């Protein structure tokens, strides 16, 4: 097996590795480099300005506004999404049936349906909800008026035209799209829990609620932890949803700017401040690293062997 080994290794490894180094790894490194310059993208030359971009960034009220929106979303979206997906996952597996059967009636159907939003293009979801939220004739407005509520009297200009509501209207869509995915993730984890444990708990007369909090959740904690990091990093991004629904790609802040949409606008709309945008990107990376570390610290538990 040794004959012709090296020519084979080199031929097989070079194309993928070259592609990866040029288009993935080098941009990540260049990003940090560009953040130390005043490059505008339009000129061939640029100067190194040290940490100037970062200093300006920290004094930029708009950036802090975007950061605060990110923080709000980071608190609400993971909590709501993961709570719903945990409950749904429990109901579709043994844990939600009192331990006796493998899930409530129709589990297979629900499982497929709930996952649908996860495979749809995010932009398509965003456009769809733009029409659903339309102030006049949108599905939401029509539904509310059908049950006797005038949407525009509660939310002037509709959910996407209202600075106080827009962020939460978009957060709802993110939750709508995310629940099915995390549910499937949790179902995968719950299926690894030995069925005897559920059956034993059922014989001992544990209710569903007790079984969930004392059996399912502790044994699933590793999955929950991963899910929190995963959804956190996803929530830091949300570019597709926000850029379409809040039109952040076109106009300035309409109340729902986050770091990602602001970065896109800084780099590719208007003045193309590439250096400044790269400083934003580097900060975004630092935020996601901090997020991962903090999450693992806070959620650390004794690992349960089973």
């Amino acid at each position, binding site marked *: 097996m040794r004959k012709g080994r090296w020519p084979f290794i080199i031929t097989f*490894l070079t194309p993928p590795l070259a592609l990866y180094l040029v*288009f993935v*790894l080098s941009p990540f490194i260049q990003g940090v480099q560009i953040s130390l310059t005043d490059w505008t993208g339009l000129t061939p030359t640029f100067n190194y300005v040290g940490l100037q971009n970062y200093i300006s960034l920290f004094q930029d009220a708009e950036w802090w506004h975007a950061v605060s929106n990110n923080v709000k979303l980071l608190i609400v979206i993971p909590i709501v999404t993961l709570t719903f997906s945990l409950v749904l996952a429990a109901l579709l597996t043994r844990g939600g049936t009192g*331990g006796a059967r493998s899930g409530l009636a129709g589990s297979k159907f629900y499982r497929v349906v709930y996952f*649908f939003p996860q495979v749809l293009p995010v932009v398509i979801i965003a456009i769809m909800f733009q*029409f659903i939220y339309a102030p006049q004739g949108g599905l939401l407005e029509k539904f509310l008026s059908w049950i006797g509520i005038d949407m525009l009297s509660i939310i002037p200009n509709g959910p996407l035209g209202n600075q106080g509501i827009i962020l939460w209207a978009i957060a709802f869509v993110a939750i709508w799209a995310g629940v099915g995915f995390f549910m*499937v993730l949790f179902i995968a984890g719950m299926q690894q829990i030995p069925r005897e444990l559920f059956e034993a708990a059922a014989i001992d007369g544990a209710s569903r609620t007790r079984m969930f909090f004392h059996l399912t959740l502790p044994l699933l904690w590793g999955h929950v932890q991963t899910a929190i990091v995963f959804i956190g990093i996803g929530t830091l991004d949300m570019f597709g949803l926000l850029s379409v629904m809040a039109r952040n790609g076109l106009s300035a802040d309409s109340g729902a700017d986050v770091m990602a949409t602001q970065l896109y606008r800084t*780099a590719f709309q208007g003045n193309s401040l590439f250096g400044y945008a790269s400083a934003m990107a580097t900060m975004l990376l630092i935020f996601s690293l901090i997020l991962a570390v903090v999450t693992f610290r806070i959620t650390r538990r004794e690992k349960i062997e089973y």
Partner: protein
Amino acid sequence: MTTMPTAAPPTEPSGEPPSEPGLEAVGTRRFGGARILSDGVPQIFLVAWALLVLLPMLWVLLSSFKNNTEIFSSPFALPAKWQFGTYARAWETANIDQFFLNTVIVVVFGVLFTLLFSSMAAYVLARYEFPGSRIVYYVFLAGMTFPLFLAIVPLFKVTQSLGLFQNLQGLIVVYVAFSLPFSVFFLTAFFQSLPKELAESAFIDGAGHFRTFFQIMLPLAKPGLISIGVFNFLGQWNQYLLPVVLNPQKDDQGSNLLLTQGLADLALKMRYESSPTSVAEMFAGLIIAMIPVLAVYIVFQRRVEEGLTAGALK
């Protein structure tokens, strides 16, 4: 969401009769009465979420056969006259045929080259120990941990200097590069799980390294390749940030745009209000963009879930 009842109310009768494993199939009938009571509230919750997921999609589907007045005046009614023409008009006048074709080209070549390159790298990394092989593996892995956003500004520069800006070839190359980390990771584990003996006996029979790979290992890896192919198909079909930055509109018709870009463009600019079914045409466009991914998901349900959850639990 405010209408959701809590999932497990404390008032439910505690402790269902434990069924023996063999009786589970009959169980549903035998304890039917008690089940209806204890499962009722959770079932309401399940049905409510299913409706919440399905209704928006059904509304878009139904509306795509209506005219503008009907969409806004009677959103829940069936169309008075089914406007099948909206699909034809969306396809032609709104240029969705071009966007669709562009997307298919990018995704087909993107997925094929992703599969080829990632299986090549993964096979070598899984089966050939050589100095530095672990380092190469971890270098690939590192790509999974960075957000795409950090790379986007430099990527703009790299593609421009290589002539890969504002064209479909450029998108294909970048899609493949960014699909490599996870695909290599997934397929390396897969190749490691395949039996070593088959490759060894192929060598004894005189096959070289290349023949062994293409004739023995690649066919064996088919299940893994399908999983990773479906995973990348969905990811690449749904991609929005990369095309928006690297493939901006270059002429009035947007002949270089992908489906997600083209539809977002139509929705954002709303330059689409002229005909009596313009909104319906937009909805038809949304349905056209949804059908391929939903079809792939329904056919490959297990593999899609496997690929996506493996991605999260890496």
